[in-house]
């Protein structure tokens, strides 16, 4: 499991929604394999005392009151200021290409 092939990279690029060239498949296969070999050292660390991974940040859930924020408070954003950033929009709706029936890229 410590070696990534060009086909592995092709599969990962599909999962990652990244269109790559043949040259990139080869280059990333070499580079990611070396990283994966490096991280294999973790198997030598004794973690038998650790229960399944728990949060390590020391923080607990934070609940906010369910109230409408006043206009002008921080992070109060006009919907159109966000929608206008999209390359295609129709009024207050962001336009996308057909979700069903389109081609499903090379897997």
């Amino acid at each position, binding site marked *: 499991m410590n070696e990534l092939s060009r086909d592995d990279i092709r599969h990962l690029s599909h999962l990652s*929604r990244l*269109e*790559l060239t043949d040259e990139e498949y080869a280059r*990333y296969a070499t580079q990611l394999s070396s990283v994966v070999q490096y*991280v294999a050292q*973790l198997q030598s660390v004794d973690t038998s005392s650790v229960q399944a991974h728990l949060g390590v940040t020391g923080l607990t859930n934070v609940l906010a009151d369910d109230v409408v924020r006043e206009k002008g408070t*921080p992070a109060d954003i006009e919907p159109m200021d966000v929608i206008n950033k999209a390359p295609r929009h129709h009024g207050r709706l962001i336009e996308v*290409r057909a979700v069903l029936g389109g081609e499903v890229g090379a897997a």
Partner: protein
Amino acid sequence: MSVKTYVNKPLNELTIEETAKGLAEAVFTSREITEVCLEHIERHDGEINSFVTITADLARSQADASDARRASGKTLGILDGVPYNLKDVFATDDSPTTASSHMLEGWVAPYNATTYRNLRDAGAVLLGKTNTDEFTMGTSSETSYFGVSRNPWNPEHVAGGSSGGPAASIAAHMSIFSIGTDTGGSIRLPAAFCGVTGLKPTYGRVSRFGEIAMASSLDQTGPITKTVRDTAIVLEVLAGNDPLDATSSSEVVPVYSKELGDIKGLRIGVPKEFFGEGVRPELETVVRTAIADLEKAGATVVEVSLPAAIHSLAAYYIIAPAEVSSNMSRYDGIRYGYSVEREESKENHTLYDIYAKSRAHGLGSEVKRRIMLGNHVLSSGYYDAYYTKAEQVRAVVREEFENIFKTENIDVLMAPISPNIAFKVGEKINDPLAMYKEDVLTVPVNISGTPGMSVPCGIVDDLPVGLQIIGPRFGEIAVLRAGAAFQSITNHHLQKANLLS
């Protein structure tokens, strides 16, 4: 305008404390020091490329507003009128924020980061946004879409990364202070490479609202300054709970700048693993001399051991890419940022093409590597071997750090920041793993969630070396006190980069 001086320095070379004093004594105005900084950037930034965006008009209006407040006796505090810059990852609604990526070139956020609001409310004057590795992924600022930031001590060498622009801008005195972010060493490493002071606070100490995310369980915002005392001043303004960031802590914020007493009784732990294989001998000598200087000044030094901590980098290169692959999925070519939909040619793309082509053209190589690595380690069949194991190692490292301060009864740990001084531009760019290994001594601090600071402690081959000071979680006072004491007994932080001499 003729260059004014104060305490025998050009205005752009002042510390925050000196600037505040000069403004209070009406020796110069905020507008004057702002113009001096802008002129210095205009004249010299071409040599180091520390700025991505210069907000001259905004800076002038903020400076004039500060001067008007001062004239009517309504000054907001010590940062009022002090010029600074932000790493190019803080959302502001009055200037572009790009994360130094083609993906966000020209993008202006519809809201402000809490860090920007805090600094604006304190009266500080924004000069612009400074360069970073693309989406903060890198150790040299060479992955920036807008070109590498060069080291003001020697422009053939990197400034470090990812906060290379912020660190270089302070070493070259283009601002009085800067704000960076640190996920695996991105404040401390460039601060060390450029010979300035940089603090990564405890995870959760500073709000990340409006900071473009890289790896959300690790990212933290912090100051890059000319002195430790200035770092304490800026941290006071940045730290605290923010209702807009559920991971920000409600731990009480001390008045850090009033806690910088002497170091009598300070106990320093020196983790032997941090001086191991790979650390350049001349650099080790400089760091050990710095620790000995503190011992002579009254601190006690004990050798300690952190055997799991050295595996932090391996855990980091699973946890960070896993979170990157998730955080970067928002750049989809649909909502904002670069999209093939904006291109002239009206090809009949499918939805899949919009995603895959926009991300392929909009993102650089390092970002793509980490997205794919993240998707690999999270794949079914690999998840337990990689991700679960890495999280377990993180728990072990975190416990190791928590215990060491108690069992050894120490206040801080001290170690080098990096195994080497700043390397040459281009030297490591084709070998990602070699680049990653530069962070081997800074990443344990992110993995353990503790605060860590770099202070300049000497020179090797005409380039600066950083001393790393690490405290327990929310133990910034001990870190700042040790750093301020070091700067009161040594002059390393006063050495000037060659660009200016």
